Every structure is written in C-alpha cells, then in structure tokens.
C-alpha cells in the first residue's frame, strides 16, 4: 500500500518495448538498476511500469539492445498537477480549505453533556458560558481545570466534574453531591420540631429528641411535636438537634370557578414559518414569511444536527406563528365540568408537591352553578409529614465559682 502510494506520489510510466531481443533488454535494464513491475508479454511486445526517474536508463538499455521503447501512459501526482496547472483557482481553493480546517480546529464546536437529573443541560450551558466555555470558544484560551474548580465550589449540587476536550469536541460530565440527600445537618445546632398544619397524628418516627405527642392526638399549627431537650433518669438534660417525621391527617380544600361565557381561540389552518440555520455562530435565514397582523401564537424550536452520534455546530431554529381568532362560547354543564376537573388535576399536582411526602386519603368534589359561573369545590384529606424544624437558641448563664 505504502509502495503504491509512493510510486503514485513520484509518478511512473506505462512503457512498451518491442523488438527481437526483448529478453536482453529486460536483463540489461535490470542490471542497470531499473525497477520494473507488472511485466507483460503481449504479442511479443514487453509492457511494464517503471518510475519516472528510470526512464532515461530504460531508454539507453533499449537502444543498446536495438529495441524500440515508448511511453504508453503517465501516472501519478506530478502529471495531475501538470494537467491542472492552469487552474490556479483549484489550488487556491485547496490551500484555503486546508487553512480553514486548521483554523476551525482551534475552536470548540461541539459540547456533549452527561448530567444528573438535578441539573439540566440548558442550566449547565449557562453556567459554563459565564466562565467562557461555550460553542465557538477558542481552545487555547480555556483553562479547563480553573473552570472546573470554580463551578464545583460555587454549585453545591456538584460533587465531581470533568471537561474533556478532544479536538473540537468537548464532553462535560458531572456527578451530583449525594450527601445533601441524606439530610445531614449541622450537629452544633439545636432545634425543636413543630407542626406545620392542624391535623390528627397517624405515624411518628423520632430519630433524635423526645416526642411530646402520640398516635391519634390532635395537633395544631405551631404546636411542638418533638423537643430538643432530652431528660434522662438521673435528672440531667441534654439539648440536641431534634430530627423526626410526624405524619398526620390534614385537610385541604380548593374552589375553582369559570365563567359561563368564555372566549376560545380558533386557530386557522395557515401558519407562518420563519427558519434560520446557525452555522459556527452565524445566523442565515432560509425561510422568511410575514408575521400575521392579527392575533397569533408563536412556538419556537431549535434542533442541533448530528452526524454519527457527534453533534455538529449546526442548528436549525424555527419560529411557527399561527393565527387565531377569539370566538365567544357559552359553556354547557358537561363542558364546564370537564374543564374544571382538568384544572383541579393541575391543582392537585402542585398541592401535593408542596406537601412533604403527602398522599391523598380522601377526596370529595361538589359541582355547583351560579348565575354567571360554574363552581367546583374539592375537599381533601391528606396524610403528610407536618414536622418543621425550629432552631433553639441556647444562651449560657454566668458560672459561679
């Protein structure tokens, strides 16, 4: 393979020799150091290939052995260059391309992320951009270790981070700080646990402190549930940082109203699309349509192109504008119920998210109608952890000798 490449680089000839003493020619040419390959005897005529530099030697050997020799074809890079020597633009383009590749390879164009669930990709992009690490950044100007140190110190969610730059591609890997999920607290602090809501106690789990309530007790908001003062049988008291979970049944209620007469958007079939291609940070619009004059809703999409699992520095951003008109509608009972139940589902998601490990035990829904609106009332019985921590301030008294 390498030999073929070298022969092509330096150039070689297809040569034909004919005469009465072709074997003598072969022997003499070989003795004189002419390298021959692909020798063929075609109807008494010897055809072979030899290097460009050996033509003169072969020619003298042919003359000595009274054979006629001529070049059938030329091969190799020197002849290709000679053939295209008038096309200076081709050479200039090749040189420019090589320079372009060399210059572009000095920048980071593709960043891939391996992140835990607590940090999303856009957030990490913003954080890295603050320290100058983004697509299109000059590689030599990036102090990767410095960036890693600063981000790891600043963001408590990150325990370990690495940025690997290979060529123009970078890979960012982050490991989360799992110590926060263990709820480690500063043991030098002391606290009580108090109730966040009214309810009835169903379960108690005390890890530290002394419990002041038992299962079945009614509790009020602000009532102390677990004390940080632990009393021992010998009369000594120790103040600790209390830690407990107290589950209680609590009540929540919600009321949602919608008017009977509402305006709904009716979308037209047509949509205006504005698209642009972003290449190495340069934006080139390739589809432009007028923004509709009447009401419209805009949705934006951005797609990064990939090739063989590698992200390219090529994005297609699209804005889709859809016209709509508002149409007045009078809701009937069934439609109103459906809408109200959908809103209630959304409320439940946020409501449960605001509780601490809350689960719905019972739910009662009632639907009513007034002169101008429909009303949905929901009453919930929820079991949740109602403990919240209240720090204790410990003031030391003057000691008497």
């Amino acid at each position: 393979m390498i030999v073929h490449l070298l022969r092509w680089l330096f150039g070689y000839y297809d040569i034909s020799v004919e005469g009465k003493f072709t074997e003598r020619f072969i022997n003499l040419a070989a003795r004189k150091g002419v390298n021959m390959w692909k020798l063929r005897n075609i109807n008494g005529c010897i055809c072979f290939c030899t290097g460009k530099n050996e033509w003169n030697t072969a020619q003298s050997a042919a003359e000595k052995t009274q054979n006629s020799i001529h070049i059938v074809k030329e091969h190799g890079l020197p002849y290709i260059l000679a053939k295209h020597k008038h096309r200076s633009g081709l050479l200039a383009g090749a040189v420019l391309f090589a320079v372009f590749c060399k210059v572009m390879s000095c920048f980071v164009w593709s960043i891939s992320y391996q992140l835990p669930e607590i940090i999303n990709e856009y957030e990490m992009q913003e954080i890295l951009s603050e320290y100058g690490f983004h697509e299109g950044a000059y590689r030599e100007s990036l102090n990767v270790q410095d960036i890693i140190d600063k981000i790891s110190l600043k963001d408590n969610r990150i325990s370990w981070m690495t940025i690997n730059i290979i060529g123009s591609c970078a890979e960012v890997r982050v490991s989360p700080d799992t110590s926060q999920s263990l709820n480690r607290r500063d043991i030098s602090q002391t606290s009580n646990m108090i109730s966040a809501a009214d309810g009835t106690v169903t379960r108690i789990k005390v890890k530290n402190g002394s419990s002041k309530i038992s299962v079945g007790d009614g509790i009020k908001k602000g009532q102390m549930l677990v004390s940080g003062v632990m009393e021992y049988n010998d009369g000594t008291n120790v103040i600790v940082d209390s830690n407990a979970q107290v589950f209680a049944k609590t009540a929540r209620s919600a009321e949602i109203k919608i008017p009977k007469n509402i305006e709904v958007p009716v979308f037209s079939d047509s949509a205006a699309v504005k698209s642009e291609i972003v290449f190495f940070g340069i934006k080139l619009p390739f589809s432009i349509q007028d923004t509709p004059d009447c009401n419209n809703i805009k949705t934006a999409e951005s797609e990064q192109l990939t090739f063989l699992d590698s992200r390219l520095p090529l994005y297609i951003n699209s804005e889709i504008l859809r016209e709509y008109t508002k149409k007045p509608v009078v809701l009937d009972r069934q439609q109103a119920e459906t809408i109200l139940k959908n809103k209630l589902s959304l409320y439940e998601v946020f409501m449960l998210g605001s509780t601490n490990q809350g689960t719905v035990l019972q739910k009662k829904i009632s639907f009513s109608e007034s002169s101008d609106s429909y009303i949905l009332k929901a009453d919930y019985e929820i079991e949740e952890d109602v403990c919240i921590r209240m720090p204790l301030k410990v003031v030391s008294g003057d000691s008497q000798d």
Partner: protein
Amino acid sequence: MKKSKGDQGMKMPAFMANLGNVHMDISGNHEIILEGGKGIVEYGDKSIKINAGKYILAFCGRGLHIQCMNDSDIVIHGFVTSIEYIM
C-alpha cells in the same frame, strides 16, 4: 562479507555465491520469488526461463508474467504447472 571474483554485483552471501545456487520461495502454484537469478533467457505467457548460473530454471504454465524485478530478484505470478532444471 567476503566476495568471490565471479560474483561482482551479486548480493548473495559468499557461501551461496560459491555454490552457485539461487533461492526460490514458492507459494502454492501461483507465486514464485526468485533471488540470485542472473537474467531472463526466455519470457513468454506459457514459459519463463531464468538463468541460474550452472543451470536454467524453466517455469511452465499459463498466464505467467513477471510481477516485478530488479537486478537479482524476480517475482513471477501466474498458474505454474511445472518447474524444470535444465542442465
């Protein structure tokens, strides 16, 4: 390496040159690498004869051709049916 008088220009070790032997590598019946040959006596599609000094090596077959050669080494490709030593 000691060279004998009659072996100027040959690249073989002296003991082989004195024996007048060529070194032949045969791969199946389709490739022959010959080292130490002294020239081509006959070159054709069905027969190639090489001067080995004290004798002539004749390769017979079909589609025979010299793949590459220099002053002392020859590579023959083709379908070889017989090899003769002609004294």
